Structure formats: structure tokens, C-alpha cells
């Protein structure tokens, strides 16, 4: 018995073991994404045969073509982009100044303000479905892009403040003091020193907010009723029919919806990880 456990420990400690285990798990985790690609490259008829073909018999890009040229999906993509980009700009802008104030120019009650933001992050947005429904109806914002921008701003704002605050905490105070002695105004310090030097951190925050907004589904599904204003996450339901689901075209749309995230991950993996950790761990 002791011999067996000794062998097990030796195996765990062997330097190649982590690679093996990791590759095994990751291939299971990546399989759904691969399967989505395979399905998108099949013609519709091939998804309804048994056994399923692992390699498409008829390789075709027609699903992508039809999604992009013969369906309302481009409109949904455009809506998603409008909502997301507007929200990223507003959220990052407001959050940066709040975080700046809390972190570098402490005032009476700044701790409480920070707590307020933490608390509003804890409130589940879904619990506020009814108040938001009443508010947006009375403001005539139901079924509009503006309404969705407001909701997404509310969802992302506390998180963005939290992430930026821990980034700005790490910003050296000496730089601010030195600029101050050289006669730079406070506003000047923010725009000429802090923003350029914190550019990567701000970009990381913006990317995380982008992906959060891009992926938001439930409020969009509840508060939009016409195709003209629905974002991509709701628009994908176009391929879900009563009789069957058009899996190749749905998969093609799913791939399109995943592309921004994948591009950002490959481009800025290090900064996204930093941002996620900054948002999670309180300093």
C-alpha cells in the first residue's frame, strides 16, 4: 500500500505531469468551441443525421454567408456595437474620475463612497427587474437602445470603479507630488500624467466592460421586443424555430458573438488578467 502511494506522489511530482493533466482537461473544455466551429461548417441537412459526423462531409461556408447577408443578424451586431461602445466610453469616463477621487484625493466619507459602490455591486441586477421596468416604461425607454445603455451602465459601473481604484492605488504618489511642485494644476495632473501613464490599466478596464456589455442578455431579452433594437445575444434566437433549431447558422452567429472576446484575449491577455484580479481582490 505504501509503495503505491509513494508511486502516486512520484507521478504527481514528475515535471511532465502538469502538462499532461492540463492538456487533458483543456481539450475537454475547448471541445464545445471546436464543436461549434465544426457545426458552423456543415450544411443544415448534415446536422440531422446519426451518427454525427466529426469531420464535415460537405465543408461549406454557406452558414456564415447566410448569417451575414440573408438574415437580420448584421442589424443585431450593429445594435450590440452601439450599446457596447457607448457604454464603454461613459462607464470608463465616469469610473476613472470616481476612482481618482477615492484613491488619490481622499475626502471625508470617501471610504463610505467606496462601500456604496461595493454594495451596489452586490445587489443582483435581476432583483431590480421590476423597478427598472417601471422606470424605463415611464421614461419611454423600453425597447430603445438608450434604455439598454442605461441598464448596462448600471451593471458595469461599480465594477469599473472597483478595478480602476485598485489600479490607481498602485500609481506612485511621488509623481503627482513632483508635478504639483513643478506647477501643474490638479486637472493637468490627471490629463497629462495619470491618464497617459495609466493607459494600459484604463484599456484593461474598458475591455472588461466591453465584454460584460457585449455578453449581457437578460435585460436585453426583457426590455426589447423588435429586431431593430435587439443586440446580438437576443438576435441569435432568430435561428431557434418551433420545429427545429438551425444549428449551423446558430453556431456561425455564436462564433461571430465570441470573436471580440477571443481577439481581446489574444491581444491583451496579461492586462485582462490583471484587471480581473484587481476587480476581485480588495486591497
Amino acid at each position: 500500500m505504501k509503495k503505491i502511494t509513494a508511486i502516486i506522489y512520484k507521478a504527481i511530482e514528475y515535471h511532465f505531469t502538469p502538462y499532461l493533466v492540463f492538456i487533458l482537461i483543456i481539450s475537454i473544455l475547448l471541445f464545445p468551441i471546436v464543436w461549434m466551429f465544426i457545426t458552423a461548417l456543415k450544411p443544415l441537412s448534415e446536422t440531422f443525421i446519426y451518427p454525427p459526423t466529426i469531420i464535415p462531409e460537405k465543408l461549406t461556408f454557406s452558414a456564415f454567408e447566410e448569417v451575414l447577408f440573408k438574415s437580420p443578424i448584421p442589424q443585431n451586431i450593429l445594435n450590440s456595437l452601439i450599446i457596447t461602445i457607448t457604454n464603454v466610453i461613459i462607464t470608463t469616463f465616469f469610473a476613472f474620475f470616481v476612482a481618482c477621487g477615492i484613491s488619490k484625493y481622499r475626502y471625508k466619507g470617501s471610504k463610505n463612497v467606496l462601500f456604496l459602490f461595493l454594495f451596489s455591486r452586490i445587489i443582483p441586477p435581476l432583483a431590480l427587474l421590476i423597478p427598472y421596468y417601471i422606470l424605463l416604461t415611464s421614461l419611454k425607454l423600453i425597447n430603445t437602445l438608450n434604455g439598454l445603455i442605461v441598464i448596462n451602465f448600471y451593471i458595469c459601473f461599480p465594477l469599473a470603479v472597483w478595478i480602476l481604484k485598485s489600479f490607481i492605488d498602485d500609481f506612485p504618489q511621488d509623481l503627482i507630488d513632483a508635478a504639483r511642485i513643478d506647477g501643474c494644476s490638479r486637472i493637468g495632473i490627471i490629463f497629462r500624467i495619470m491618464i497617459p501613464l495609466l493607459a494600459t490599466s484604463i484599456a484593461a478596464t474598458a475591455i472588461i466592460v466591453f465584454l460584460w456589455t457585449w455578453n449581457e442578455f437578460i435585460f436585453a431579452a426583457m426590455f426589447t421586443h423588435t429586431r431593430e433594437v435587439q443586440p446580438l445575444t437576443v438576435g441569435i434566437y432568430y435561428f431557434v424555430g418551433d420545429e427545429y433549431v438551425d444549428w449551423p447558422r446558430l453556431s456561425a452567429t455564436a462564433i461571430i458573438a465570441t470573436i471580440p472576446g477571443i481577439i481581446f484575449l489574444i491581444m491583451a491577455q496579461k492586462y485582462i488578467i490583471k484587471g480581473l484580479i484587481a476587480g476581485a481582490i480588495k486591497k
Partner: protein
Amino acid sequence: MKLSESRFGFLLSFPGLLVIILLSFFPTIMLFITSFLRYDNINPITFCAFENYEKMLNDPLFLPSLEKTLVFTFGTTSLTFCVGLILALCLSRITKYSGVFRILMLLPWAVPLVISGFIWKWIFDPVYGVINYLLIKIGLLANPINIFSDPNLAMIGVIVADSWVRIPFMCVILLAGFESIPQDLYEAAKVDGANAFQTFRYISLPLAMPAMATGLMITSMFSFRTIDVICSMTKGGPARATYVIGYFLQDQLYRTLNFGYLSALGIIMLFLQLAIISIFIYYLFKR
């Protein structure tokens, strides 16, 4: 005009503060108020004290949905934690090509949750699904299973689809925890002849505890509040097996338009969330 440092700070955060009060605290107060109103869009709005809450306790959908919520949250969090932990432990020992491995590990995080529900629905498809086919081919299954007709299996299905997206985040947080542990501790343990399990039990585990608690807290918080996967995968079914409280809330909005009653549900959701969070906050601050 000369502003003091602290005044300037307040001025900087004032617009944001105003916005968050307007968008977050005002609706929360509204939620409290409407939960005490008879507000069903049929009769005129009147005050009704705890009538909505009483009705909720008598609702045959309410208590089961609470149970489903806890099963879903607990299931997702534990599955995410187990897989995330193994991946993080592997990654912390991987030195070659670690950048590539990290990107591969993060990929599911980029998939929107609704879409994760669709992908897994397709993979688990009872007739044309690839999982059934593979399991039968390996010999683990004799006949294809239909997870969308079995209540327990359906719950497992949504838990898998939900954790799939959350594993990368958990892994990132745990990895940060492991990497903050000084390397010489491991070397000292090696010199003392500790085996892999002992090193993990007496060094990695206690020192990465705060990171683990944080990861668990955030994962449980988000799996409690998001129902995207359930929307695209099971729609609360079969036989309300995946009818969690959040799904209850959004499902009933257009069916009943009973705002008072649904606000009371929202309040319950809010307090449940606070309860789950405070367990972790208590643990993190106790240290």
C-alpha cells in the same frame, strides 16, 4: 478659487456618486416600496403590508424555486472550483509555453453565457448530440440519454454549461493566489522531505486561502444571479426542474404583470444574495 485637496476629490467623484445613487439605490428603495403595495396592473395601487410576502409563502412555485437556486449555485460553484483548482495547480507548475496555455484556458470566458447554453444544448441533444454518440461508442452508455427529460440530469446539464464559462475566472484568481506564495517555502519543504500532498496541504492551501475564498465568493455571487444559461438551455424545465428564483422572476413578469408580488420576490433575491456574500465577507475579514 482655491480648492482643498479633499474638496477636489469629492468634486471628482460627485458625478459618479450621483449616477450610482440614481441608478442603483433609487431602484432598490423603489423595490422595497412596491413590495408592500398591491400593484398588479388590474386594481388601483394600494398599500397592503405583507400580503405579497404571505402570498409568496403559499405559492407552490416559490419554495421549490428556492431549493433549485441553492442547488444550482452550490453545484456551479463547486464544479467551477474543483476544475479551476486542478487547472491552476497545473498552470503554476507549467513553465514552457505558459502564455499559450493561459490563453487556451481563458477562451471559454470569452463565450457569452447565453451562447454557452446553446452550445451545450446542441452537444447534449438527445438524438443528434455528440456526447451521446461518443459515450455509446466508448461503451459507457448502452442507450442514448435525454438530459432534457430527466429533472436531475437537466440540473446537471445547466450546471455544466454555467461552470464552463466561469472556470477561467476561478483559475485566474486561484493562480494569482498560488503565485503570491514565496518560492523558498516550497524549496524548504522539499529539503525537509515533504511529499506533493503535504506541500499542498500545509503550504499552498493555507496561504492561498484568501484567494480561494474570493474566487468562491465571486463565482457563487454570479451563478446565483445569472440565468442566461437556463434561458437558452432548458427554459426552467423539465417540470420546473431548473426553475431558479431569477428565472421565476423574469418568467412571471410578462405573464402576470403583478409588480407588487414580483417585487417581493426581488427583495427575497436581494437578501439571499446578501446572506451568501456575508458568509464569505465574515470569513475574509475575520482573518
